[in-house]
């Protein structure tokens, strides 16, 4: 298990011991809803643009091409998408952290840890889905770093995270920075 995952795992288990499942889910939901409304961390990405932006493409893969830093949120190789599964909202009228006009963000989601080669930091990201319209159909991307099957739901990208929305049709996916992940001491 990745040390960063373990930090969150231990934290989640600790919470689970003290709370019911429903209240845990409610808390997580509130946390992630709130997180989605937080402004992005002030990260200057221009310094990391070492290669020309790759064209938007359908694709899947486990990691970006070795030695290549992709700074294009419309590329599946963009660092924040290390465990995303779906259509990139960046190609659908939104951005890597905003839903396209007229869709609704999912309040519940899955979380992961992605390494940003531009600043050498690991970031906790939430992979929210944007909901209420038919699938966007552009820039499909499937990467699965530390992704787990459905029995570990908070690490799973197979399910429709729009499931609890009033309008639960899946449209596209975003990756939202929740904070810098501190390595386990």
């Amino acid at each position: 298990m990745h040390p960063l995952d373990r930090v969150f795992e231990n934290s989640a288990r600790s919470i689970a011991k003290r709370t019911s499942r429903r209240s845990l889910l409610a808390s997580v939901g509130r946390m992630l809803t709130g997180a989605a409304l937080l402004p992005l961390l002030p990260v200057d990405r221009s310094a990391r643009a070492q290669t020309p932006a790759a064209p938007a493409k359908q694709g899947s893969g486990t990691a970006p091409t070795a030695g290549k830093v992709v700074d294009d949120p419309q590329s599946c190789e963009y660092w924040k998408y290390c465990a995303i599964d779906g259509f990139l909202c960046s190609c659908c009228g939104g951005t890597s952290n905003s839903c396209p006009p007229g869709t609704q963000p999912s309040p519940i989601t899955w979380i992961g840890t992605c390494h940003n080669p531009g600043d050498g930091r690991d970031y906790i990201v939430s992979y929210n889905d944007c909901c209420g319209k038919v699938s966007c159909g552009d820039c499909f991307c499937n990467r699965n770093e530390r992704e787990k099957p459905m029995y570990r739901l908070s690490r799973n990208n197979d399910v429709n995270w729009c499931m609890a929305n009033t309008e639960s049709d899946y449209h596209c996916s975003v990756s939202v920075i929740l904070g810098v992940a501190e390595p386990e001491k």
Partner: protein
Amino acid sequence: MRDCGAADGYGMGASMHKILTRVALLTLFASSRLLAAPPPPLPTETLTVAKLGPKSPHWVYVLDEAQDNEIDARVYLYDGDTHRRLGQIGAGFMPGINLSPDGKTTVVATTYFARGGHGTRTDVVEFNDNATLAKAGEVIVPPKHAQSLAMTFDVAYSADGHFVYVPYLTPAASFGVLDPVKKTLIGEIDTAGCVLVIPSGPNRVSSICESGRLLTVTLDAHGKEASRATSAPMFDPDKDPLFVQGIQSGDGYLFLTFLGEAHEVDFSKAAPTFRPTWPLVTGADKGVWRPGGIQIGAIQRAQGKLYVAMHRGGEGSHKEGGSEIWVFDLKTHQRLARWPFDTKPAGRAVALQVSQDATPLLFAATEGADVAILDAQTGSLKHREKHLGQTPSLLLNP
């Protein structure tokens, strides 16, 4: 029209060349007269609905998730011998599909929105007559069917066909119990966070838990919970996660892990029994060659063979399809063959299924939406069906 005779000026002294030319022209003229004659009219036609022929072991039901427009998933019935699509079953949004134990029904657990991509959500379990591919009843269920990419246990029949189980996810996990004969919803059973519905016997449902254990709920004759039990740990989800796509074996299901351990589970008894695990990958290949994809393996039960889509990968590569197909003997656990899979035409193999007859076909759906048909004895390619839908990802046999 003039006659062809001496009066036209051609006498004995005419060259053979001219005669032949004349004959050829006349023949052409006569032919054109024949061609110009109107052919007899085609017979009148009667509009009918095609009927399916007798069920073939080489038929396969192909779930196309229609990823680019996901509210329009469908199941194609495809003939592996004639290479024809025989018909289609509608499957809605992120469905679970399965076949009844007698093969007569395709069950689809799915979602529809009132206005296409939006509007009131209705979740429903639909029954489709496999003899006609027509819908043959439905049961409306609470709007919480577990919507997911294709999963083998996203709806299931009991072994005697008396119950249908449909998993729910809100994200709290539970499952519904249905009577497929009366077309009624019997009830809902909480699974304490364990997911999916693995059917066994006439009245047992197992679900996979985050702890690596199986929860098994036993139902009474009315489909209500009679008892439940949690197994010993079956796998370690931290060290080597288990794919949830179980493969039907003789007395239960075989599951594979990300690193390639085979977990055979006997579901024939009151509680699932775990056989000793065995590795698909040994030596220097361990951790390098891995199973992966969506429907990662298939078992030919009579011949005791396991087929697995394998790729070279690492952490996070578990959904990558196979660049090779490995074949194992289920008794000896020895690898019998290692077949390269041609990835050039349409990518790697993401879903495998094998027919259960004496001359089995191996079906392999690819990343690029082809379905390759291989001789399951030799691995040789018999046919490649180009673009069988958008995203074929689950293959079921009659």
